[in-house]
């Protein structure tokens, strides 16, 4: 994942507040673990709450493991987590370089994901390799998929929201959507009448695959160890798998 570039902070430097590190002792003494999540990003998280999103459910499970309750802070971009003062972020790429200037430290990974193709059921497409100059692929603006696919001279169509790209496939406006497995799986769960075929990830393209971990903002060693142990327990007893499955997502083992 070395080519994954740092998350941008650019124009928003001024919004970053002076956040304090939150050691495990402080979290336990206040009885609260802070989770930052996007308020409008199902299946990841949803401020409206029904369903709350797998990040919120996993955050609650992690807080229980630490013996505290979960406090949610809703952010729209990652740099806001510093001023929000939360402790963790979920579904982060388990790569220090990828986290760049966010200063997030990552836990041991708990699943593997990346970018897949969602295609109509009758599509002849079988993998990224079968894309050609005649197939139009929906991509998220500013994503690796946008760059990699367009460099192969495959026509792309840029979207700001993965669900819009999936809708465009379902409506036969484009031939495939390059999206996260979570978004595609949740789309199928919530649109059974329009369900798409989800192709397997292609591990041969390093930048379109990554492990996922808990991101921690300035943790002490105790918090890192506690989060790692909690993740391990929740993986072992099937809690994490069950949470994601409620959103139609089948997790794959980290690599």
């Amino acid at each position, binding site marked *: 994942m070395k080519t994954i570039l740092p998350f*941008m902070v650019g124009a928003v430097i001024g919004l970053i507040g002076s956040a304090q590190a939150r050691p495990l002792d402080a979290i336990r003494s206040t009885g609260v673990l802070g989770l930052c999540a996007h308020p409008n990003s199902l299946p990841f998280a949803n401020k409206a709450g029904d369903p709350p999103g797998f990040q919120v459910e996993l955050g609650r499970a992690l807080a229980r493991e630490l013996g505290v309750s979960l406090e949610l802070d*809703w*952010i729209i971009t990652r740099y806001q987590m510093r001023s929000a003062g939360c402790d963790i972020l979920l*579904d982060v790429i388990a790569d220090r370089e990828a986290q760049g200037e966010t200063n997030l430290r990552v836990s041991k990974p708990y699943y593997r994901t990346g970018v897949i193709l969602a295609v109509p059921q009758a599509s002849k497409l079988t993998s990224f390799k079968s894309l050609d100059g005649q197939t139009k692929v929906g991509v*998220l*603006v500013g994503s*690796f998929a*946008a760059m990699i696919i367009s460099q192969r001279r495959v026509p792309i169509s*840029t979207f700001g929201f993965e669900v819009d790209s999936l809708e465009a496939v379902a409506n036969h406006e484009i031939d495939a959507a390059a999206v996260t497995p979570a978004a595609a799986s949740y789309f199928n769960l919530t649109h059974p009448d329009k369900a798409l075929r989800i192709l397997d990830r292609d591990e041969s393209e390093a930048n379109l695959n990554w492990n996922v971990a808990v991101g921690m903002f300035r943790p002490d060693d105790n918090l890192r160890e506690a989060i790692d142990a909690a993740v391990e327990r929740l993986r072992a007893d099937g809690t994490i798998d069950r949470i994601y499955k409620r959103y139609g997502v089948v997790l794959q083992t980290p690599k």
Partner: protein
Amino acid sequence: MKKHLGYFSLPVAVAIGATLAASSAFAQTVDTARIEAAGQNDWLTYHGSYKSHHYSPLAQINTSNVGNLGVAWMHIPGRSTRGVQSMPLVADGVLYYTGSYSRTFALNGATGELIWHYFPELDEALVKRQTHSPYNRGVALGEGKVYVGTVDGRLIALDAKTGRVAWDTKLIDSQKLTVGFTGAPLYAKGLVIIGAQGGEWPGRGPIFAIDAATGKKKWEFLTVAGTEEAMKTWGGDSWRTGGGGGWMPGTYDSETNTILWGTANPAPLYDWSGADYKTQGARPGDNLYTSSVIGLDIDTGKLKFYHQELPHDAWDFDSSVGEFVMLERDGQKLIVHPNKGGFIFVYDRNLAVKNVWRLVQNINFVKDIDPKTGALIGRRDFTAGKVTDPPLCPFIGGGISWNAGSYSPKTGLYYKIGQEWCMTLDVQKTTPVTTPQAQLNIGADFKMAPPPGGEIYGHLDARDPVTGVKKWEVRYPEPPLGSVLATAGNLVFVPDSRGVIHAYDAETGTELWNHNNGTGHQGGIVSYSVGGKQYIAVTAGFGGMLADEYGPNFGGIYKSMPRDDGMLVVFSLK
């Protein structure tokens, strides 16, 4: 809300006269003809008049007596998150202005006495997570109403007499895009025009026209691919997420029946295409109509003419900033418009380029701009990676910022702030995407840097608006960010970033007076008259995307300057 009367309280008789003048205001209405005429006692639209001179023909305060200027009254709007950025408006002795969160006030222009206030109920959860928020840059007046935009995507009309809501129209799905309105609206010909934020966000930057009487939408123009021709300039269907917007108010040209508006940059803000930007990168092509000036038919919203100041803007030097100064030279009717990159464009009334000149010395994003055609010469397009030697000039804050300059018909000079600063840059091809929607779409890390071989500074220039010939210049250690006001009293007022408001002789640049307001300026300044007395009103209060860079980069006074405070300060002769 708190209100302070100044130390120099007015005599009772004058105060009563002023109150009467204020209350009689409502017998008159602000309409297109009145804004066009720009009566000397008022300030009826953001740019002063449709001619956008930001100039007051009042001369009671002048070079001989400006030394006697003192605070008449102050008003503190409260909850001034990220400072006060509004341009006050004045009609018949009543001053209207806004604070953060679109809190709107009507005050007696002579005494500061509150007539009414309106605090809109906003989607606070949404506002909290916005980036370019919650400041507001002012209102529009027309047909007995006060119009104000909100950061949660609404345009609201208030009864000018009472502050009661006349209508409240939702225009943008702010929940999805997180953008709304921070710029002031424009009233003209029975319509209220307002442009959306959007430069770095994955939208299409609409400009809306709303029926001033009913609040119903009359038309909408998409600054990103708003025509068939424009759609072809966005490779990879990148128009879907093109950014754009028109976040500052334009103006109205009654002779051509045209709305003139400046548009924002495309998204992602920085591109990694290198020289192959027509076919490569995140948004291949010229990206019409971003970083452009456009002329829209006011009745239909159809595009009549345009000039794209920066085709495929890869530097965030958009055209939303600044005024459309209308003037005549040698029988030609011209429009002067600044671009954030530090150039001043001179157009005819159909936006055909007549000249381009440099206000700012430190520019290297292009070698030059052809003054005859407006074509960019020697553009500097980046591939992914670091940009350090030389740094990119100007800094992302612009060679010219969003606040307004001023043109004095009396001296024939254009008074405009230039900013000399640069930045290092790390252009990124992509961002790791782990949520199912695009986030703030910048595409680079950057850091302020001094110009090669020099220091960061700002300057007020007095220039010929058409040729750019400089008559005089005043320098500041840090670039001022507020608007400039010229008056018929042969004065130019500059509210600076340290908190000092300066008055200069408009002919020579000699400083004649100053006053410390105690906090940085980054908003509007106007002049008006009530009961025969001239006033100067300026907003003070620092904070926001650009002002927040001052503490870390300049230290000193900016380290302790509050980011969430501010006020309106009104001056008159003692």
